[in-house]
């Protein structure tokens, strides 16, 4: 077991909320607006629920035959001229990437957003070995310049105001600290990144999906930055988690209809790119990464988390995430998906995370691949309780709820009534902010005929601040 310090999300969230009257309400408002766009998109597609069910089934089928599909993917990608590498863990992934770069004499690398490369802590590893690594996604680059990890898996710098970005660019790039127009700031980064795309010896991407049938992998972006990185430098390296496989090309119709609608309330991302072998005149390396995934696959209570397509909808809908900010989780993955993924990397370090939730179930309701997120959060609490990792915060509140906690049936009843939502969440997340309808309306949904999410949607819109 790790002897690292426990991540303390409640304390960190409190800092985010108490910092000023600007950051936390803005964060909450943006993500809520994203959620409303997602809801409108979902409502406009009659087969939405059927698509979610299909996506879930396709992923379940793939994960229970993953060895077969990985071998099929490898064979087809190899046939098309890609070089396939296998990495058991983060260290091996980083070593493989480094050795490819070294053998090509690459000193500068431009990359697009990849949560897997974040998970592997690849950038510091390469920088320590003399390779310059530049993020090309605007939000990711903002975070890199600020020395922070991404705070959201889709919107990495969503917790920052335009003023924060203007001041950061002024410090790091020398622009006018008082010009905080997002158009200006985006243009600054475009002009800053262009020469780097042209100078880079390699481009790196992640992969949103890998198609076994054809040996193709897919990358979705809005900026087109992954495409520049893949099409300009002579060398393209992609890091892909082994859980990203889908069997057939036609499966992508289901997943792409769900992904961007769930993530940002748009029908697609601006660019949905398919790479099958190297481009004309280029070289392509694919690193298939396990890093705990095959072990997670054997956990009957938690393997469904491997279905995740990293859309971020569970974060946007989560009342605790929206108010905490992603950095509060102190982990690569934040929000509800982070709560169920992070403990599989380090149970002790992330033992607080399952308590950073209201168990309201909203995440489960919106997840496009139907992961039972809130049930898994509850199960992780039991794991932590069994291991004796008592939550740092609100021990009293927790103890008061202990009776229900020790009696799952009773807990279920309470949960159905919407009770534990307020019972378990750290109070300051719920009450201390006059602008938040969550805190303003202390009435519990009675009777709880609707799901919690339905109640919350109705309740929130009454306050009409969006």
């Amino acid at each position, binding site marked *: 077991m790790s002897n690292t310090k426990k991540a303390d999300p409640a304390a960190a969230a409190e800092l985010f909320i108490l910092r000023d009257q600007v950051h936390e309400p803005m964060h909450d408002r943006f993500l809520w607006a994203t959620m409303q766009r997602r809801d409108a998109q979902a409502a406009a597609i009659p087969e939405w629920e059927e698509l979610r069910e299909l996506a879930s089934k*396709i992923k*379940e089928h793939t994960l229970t035959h993953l060895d077969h599909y990985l071998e099929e993917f490898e064979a087809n990608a190899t046939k098309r001229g890609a070089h396939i590498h296998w990495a058991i863990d983060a260290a091996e992934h980083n070593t493989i990437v480094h050795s490819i770069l070294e053998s090509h004499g690459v000193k500068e690398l431009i990359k697009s957003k990849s949560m897997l490369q974040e998970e592997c802590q690849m950038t510091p590893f390469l920088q320590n070995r003399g390779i310059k690594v530049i993020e090309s996604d605007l939000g990711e680059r903002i975070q890199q310049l600020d020395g922070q990890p991404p705070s959201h898996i889709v919107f990495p710098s969503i917790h920052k105001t335009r003023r924060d970005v203007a001041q950061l660019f002024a410090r790091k790039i020398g622009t006018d600290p008082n010009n905080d127009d*997002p158009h200006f700031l985006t243009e600054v980064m475009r002009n800053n990144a262009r020469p780097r795309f042209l100078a880079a010896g390699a481009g790196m991407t992640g992969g949103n999906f890998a198609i076994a049938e054809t040996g193709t992998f897919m990358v979705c972006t809005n900026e087109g930055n992954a495409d520049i990185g893949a099409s300009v430098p002579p060398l393209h390296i992609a890091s892909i988690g082994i859980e990203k496989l889908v069997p057939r090309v036609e499966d992508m119709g289901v997943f792409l209809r769900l992904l961007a609608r769930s993530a940002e309330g748009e029908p697609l991302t601006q660019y949905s790119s398919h790479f099958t072998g190297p481009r004309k005149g280029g070289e392509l390396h694919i690193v298939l990464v396990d890093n705990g995934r095959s072990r997670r696959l054997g956990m009957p209570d938690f393997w469904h988390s491997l279905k995740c397509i990293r859309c971020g909808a569970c974060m946007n809908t989560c009342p605790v995430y929206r108010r905490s900010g992603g950095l509060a989780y102190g982990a690569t993955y934040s929000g509800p998906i982070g709560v169920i993924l992070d403990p599989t990397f380090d149970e002790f370090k992330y033992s607080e995370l399952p308590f950073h939730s209201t168990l309201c179930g909203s995440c489960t309701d919106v997840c496009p691949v139907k992961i039972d997120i809130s049930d898994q959060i509850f199960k992780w609490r039991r794991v932590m309780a069994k291991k004796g990792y008592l939550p740092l915060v609100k021990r009293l509140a927790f103890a008061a709820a202990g009776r229900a906690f020790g009696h799952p049936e009773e807990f279920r009843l309470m949960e159905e009534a919407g009770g534990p939502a307020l019972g378990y969440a750290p109070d300051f997340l719920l009450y201390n902010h006059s602008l938040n309808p969550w805190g303003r309306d202390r009435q519990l949904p009675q009777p709880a005929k609707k799901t919690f999410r339905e109640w919350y949607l109705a309740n929130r819109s009454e306050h009409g601040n969006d």
Partner: protein
Amino acid sequence: METTSSREVILKGIRYSNLFLIKQEAEAPQIPVFQRADTPLKPEFEVHLQKAGGVAHDVSSVAEVETKLAVLHPEAMVICSAVPEIAGTRKVTEVHDPHELADVDVGIVRAQFGVAESGAVWLTQEDLVVDALGFLSQHLIVLLDPNEIVSDMHAAYLRVRLDETAFGCFMMGPSATADVEATLVHGAQGARSLNIFFLPPM
């Protein structure tokens, strides 16, 4: 060799873990054909393209495309074309290295088909000739046959041939970002604008 053994370790780990799971689905599920309202696809395509930040134009001739091009991009110095209809100032077939495209003001390409539910067009390496033309060009002009529009992504993937191209992209409007205060800005890294001209091939 290190990678061979890692491969075996990972595959064995998966097989071992799979022993704990119930294999509910022996086959991947069938994807049904979803019924579509019988509405014309072109207007739907145009609405979604506009939402994505692109603009559609009805034209009747190549000459009209060239006139509109001059109005849209009067300052363009380098116009790089991947279509036989329009010469531009540079033929992409004469480009050997993607870096040569760094100065392109306007790229001109023909998409194979469009998707009504999103306003996206499908572009492959064969259409772009040099992939980077689609991403380094400051602005893009896309020619599209108005009869080549499919309804949704299911129909789109029936037409996509990933076994025949090393690169293919559904491109939905120009490059965009909302990374500063969730404010939408076009032209983050890729094309700043995307204009689609409805014109069947000659």
